[in-house]
């Protein structure tokens, strides 16, 4: 299986820590993941509002580049850590392959640029790869640090499960919970793990968007979580960066660390905090939660 890394725009700016931790974790697991050369925007949510076809063509270019970079092999996964990119690419692939009229236009556009579309490339979310391509026991064995007292609320958000749930249950996904149990952490059951965080509304119509995020944070806290992990740069941004604003707006004290799932995972695997971009958090993971693990098997028990 060959992996190509599709960062998308956010992982190069607001989501830098996601990129840092994702690359650190995959490296620690011995997984090679080259960056897709000259990738472009996935044509996500906002783009779709203006031109659907152009959005598909943009994703078409990424898929076509991936195929070329993988020398046309049939077992290449284009790994997108960003949920919106994952959906943008998945949706484009589905529509291109399902609707001949879209296919012919995308083909035409790609040909005009000297590119060619092939069905081979699999679009994968990083979570899918880490949960399903690795034996969870081997991950347990690699745990170097025990994160005492961490009660994790796993937050999936929308777009890795909807509308296509390719690697997990649509209504009750459990991939992240399984992963964090393998990492020896307690997970909290909460019913809102796939409810929308508000997306870009937190910035555009903030009174609405932030309320959505606030509901999530409040319920997670109420259910005993002391850290939330996410698998999407926008979700992480919304849940973390507006906490002080929310506290004012909703007259409540909102204070809970929100990390990328790869950051907390990296911490358990013993990767230095800095390498995981943990210093970039607004709400830090408290110092001293780490203690050396007594060995993989013990963690499982």
């Amino acid at each position, binding site marked *: 299986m060959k992996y190509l890394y599709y960062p998308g725009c956010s992982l190069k700016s607001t*989501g830098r820590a996601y990129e840092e931790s994702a690359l650190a974790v995959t490296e620690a697991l011995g997984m090679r993941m080259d960056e897709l050369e000259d990738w472009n925007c996935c044509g996500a949510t906002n783009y779709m*509002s203006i*031109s659907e076809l152009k959005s598909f063509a943009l994703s078409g*270019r990424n898929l076509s580049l991936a195929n070329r970079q993988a020398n046309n092999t049939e077992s290449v996964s284009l790994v997108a850590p960003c949920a919106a990119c994952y959906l943008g690419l998945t949706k484009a692939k589905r529509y291109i392959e399902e609707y001949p009229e879209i296919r012919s236009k995308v083909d035409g556009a790609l040909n005009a640029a000297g590119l060619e579309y092939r069905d081979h490339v699999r679009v994968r979310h990083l979570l899918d790869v880490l949960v399903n391509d690795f034996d969870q026991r081997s991950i347990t064995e690699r745990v170097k640090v025990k994160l005492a007292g961490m009660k994790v609320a796993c937050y999936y958000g929308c777009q890795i499960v909807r*509308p296509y749930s390719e690697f997990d249950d649509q209504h009750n996904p459990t991939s992240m919970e399984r992963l964090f149990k393998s990492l020896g952490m307690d997970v909290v059951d909460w019913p809102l793990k796939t409810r929308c965080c508000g*997306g870009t509304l937190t910035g555009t*119509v903030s009174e*609405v968007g932030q309320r959505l995020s606030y509901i999530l944070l409040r319920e997670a806290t109420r259910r005993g979580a002391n850290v939330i992990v996410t698998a999407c740069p926008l979700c992480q941004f919304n849940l973390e960066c507006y906490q*002080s604003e929310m506290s004012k707006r909703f007259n409540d004290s909102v204070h809970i660390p929100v990390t990328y799932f790869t950051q907390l995972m990296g911490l358990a695997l013993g990767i230095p905090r800095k390498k995981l971009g943990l210093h970039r958090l607004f709400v830090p993971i408290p110092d001293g939660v780490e203690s050396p693990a007594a060995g993989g098997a013990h963690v499982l028990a």
Partner: protein
Amino acid sequence: MDNWRGWDKISYQSDLDPRFAEEIASIPGGDKLFACIQCGTCSGMCPLSSYMDVTPRQIIAMIRAGFKGDVLSSYTTWLCASCYTCSVECPKQIKITDIMYAAKRLAIREGVYPKKFPIPVLASEFFSAVEKNGRSSEGRLIMKFVMKTNPLNMFKQAGLGLKLFRTGRFSIKRESVERVGELNSMMKFLEMEHMIKKASDAVGVKEDHK
């Protein structure tokens, strides 16, 4: 009675656009829209429906009935955060999120979206940046967006910006693909296709009238 602001709420058939539904339904898989039984699952599931001026269910009904103006100028479509909950739970498997997109595209094309509403502005800024450079530069996008919608917000958001800047999460560097030419050729091709289609549609319309 002083506060009574009466208006004629009746809708005349001549004010409706009977082709609106067909137009929206022409998106891939869009014809399922006609199967809607108005059960309201979409509105019930929608995390944003409580903030919308009309519910998603009503949007479908309005599209079907030809209330083009009301649909395109409503806030509902722009509040849709594309979480796809409605699409997944719809008992008739109507691709409601895609329909919202279709309505947004039409609103922009016809210039009838709620003008001062920030969301279409963000979408257009995002679109033009990506179309030009192939990537979005989040920092620049946010700045431009704030300038265009509510410059005063710049000060309100200064704290957040500063924090982002300090943690290395904010940059105003312009991001771009290397081979911009490739993208340009692709977009040109699609625009040509679009123009050809429009032209031929226009001819078709003319013949219809004869």
